[in-house]
């Protein structure tokens, strides 16, 4: 698997550390009434077979947090953006 880092260019997969589903959103409230949202955020996953947005840390490279959009069956990579751009786009939409 080769991943095209926005800063470093195309790099091999062993330079990256993966940290799971990027599409889930951290709840903003500390109110105990939002415990269900926290439970969903911490424990439940869609775990899709197919297109998947996933956090990847370029840990042996520029150390930027990225979001890689990949097919979990074929490992085809559709898109790589920085985690910041991913979050900004989510806020904008």
């Amino acid at each position, binding site marked *: *698997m080769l991943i095209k880092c926005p800063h470093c260019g195309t790099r*091999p*997969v*062993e330079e990256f*550390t*993966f*940290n*799971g*589903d990027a599409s889930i959103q951290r709840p903003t409230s500390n109110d105990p009434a939002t415990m269900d949202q926290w*439970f*969903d955020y*911490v*424990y*439940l*996953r*869609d*775990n899709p*077979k197919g297109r*998947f947005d*996933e956090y*990847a840390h370029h840990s042996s490279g520029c150390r930027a947090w990225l979001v890689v959009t*990949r097919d*979990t*069956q*074929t*490992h085809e990579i559709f898109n790589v953006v920085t985690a910041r751009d991913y979050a900004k786009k989510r806020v904008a939409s």
Partner: protein
Amino acid sequence: MKYSVFSLLKNTLSGHKKWPAAWRDPQPKKDYEVVIIGGGGHGLATAYYLAKVHGISNVAVLEKSWLGSGNVGRNTTIIRSNYMLPGNNPFYEWSMKLWEGLEQDFNFNAMVSQRGVLNLCHTDPQRDAFARRGNAMRIDGVDAELLDAEGVREMYPFLDFNNARFPIKGGILQRRGGTVRHDAVAWGYARGADSRGVDIIQNCEVTGIKTVKGKVVGVGTNKGFIGCKKLGLAAAGNSSEVAAMAGLKLPIESHVLQAFVSEGLKPYIDGVVTFGAGHFYVSQSDKGGLVFGGDIDGYNSYARRGNLPMVEHVIEAGVAMIPGLARVRVLRSWGGIMDMSMDGSPIIDKTSIDGLYLNAGWCYGGFKATPASGWCFAHTIAHDELHKLNAAYRLDRFRRGYMIDEKGQGASPNLH
């Protein structure tokens, strides 16, 4: 037919041309009392114990591919019950006890071989942790022996005891652990279930789960609709996909785990040895190949193949433990899809939907659990309540805060 020395002699005289098929290849009936999704080890074991222990034989096992094509035929065949936490250990020890009597029970040679499982330690704190785990095991009636470096050297003199970075200080040995011929487990359970009236339907993929007023009524498949009163999910790496058909979202991610086998060698390693400084475990098959594996690749995957960096990592760990492995050639490697749960422990439970039962989250420890998993899942389905052995494996334990986290990694499936 019962397999015995007499049936063997009889069939030898007829040139082994008259053995009957080990199980039927039936078409699905319109409805069943229980349908199990997943014809792997756990699904077949569940059907077997439903028929044998609970007298429920109006059961179908639906397998989307051929029988045993999933993880039951892809693992490294190790059995052990060397866990520490209270929710886990009695369950895995029951599994070990079932392994010990399994071949007589289902009349099939599964080559259960209690050749010993040895975990190596490389530091004093690691030895302390092993002593603690060994004591926890012995409280639950499991055998555990703490060995010093000399004790390990007597068993495996070719290990790298004086490795500069990871010297071997000792190990914890479970003599009753060992290996089992994995395919034969699927075949034995399939034959045992089939002979008691269970329909095993291969190449039958479930496409939907139908519920009416919160109760399961059947499943849609590529062979048409099959009605059922109770439905058990035992779909391993595909658990999330199948559960989603019933509107359930699980605390599970699917990851790929690779396994390897070397060219055939003369007898070299007579037990199972695991490296304590990295994740590496090895045993030798009866054909002579070294069977070994390591960690999952670390990213979500439904592809039954892994990447080369993990191949390199596993081989490095192996050579650090046994320098002689550097001269051995790998014959092949393959991957399987693991249902990694959020605390590294499994789920055998009822669900919020009436008549729907879940067996999932086995991470990469599912094979050793096959008998107890089937046994407990059958009990849960038959009685609509959990047995005390799987009482801790509740689906709602994450919400309630009762995780069973042997490794203490938290809700990070790729680290368990």
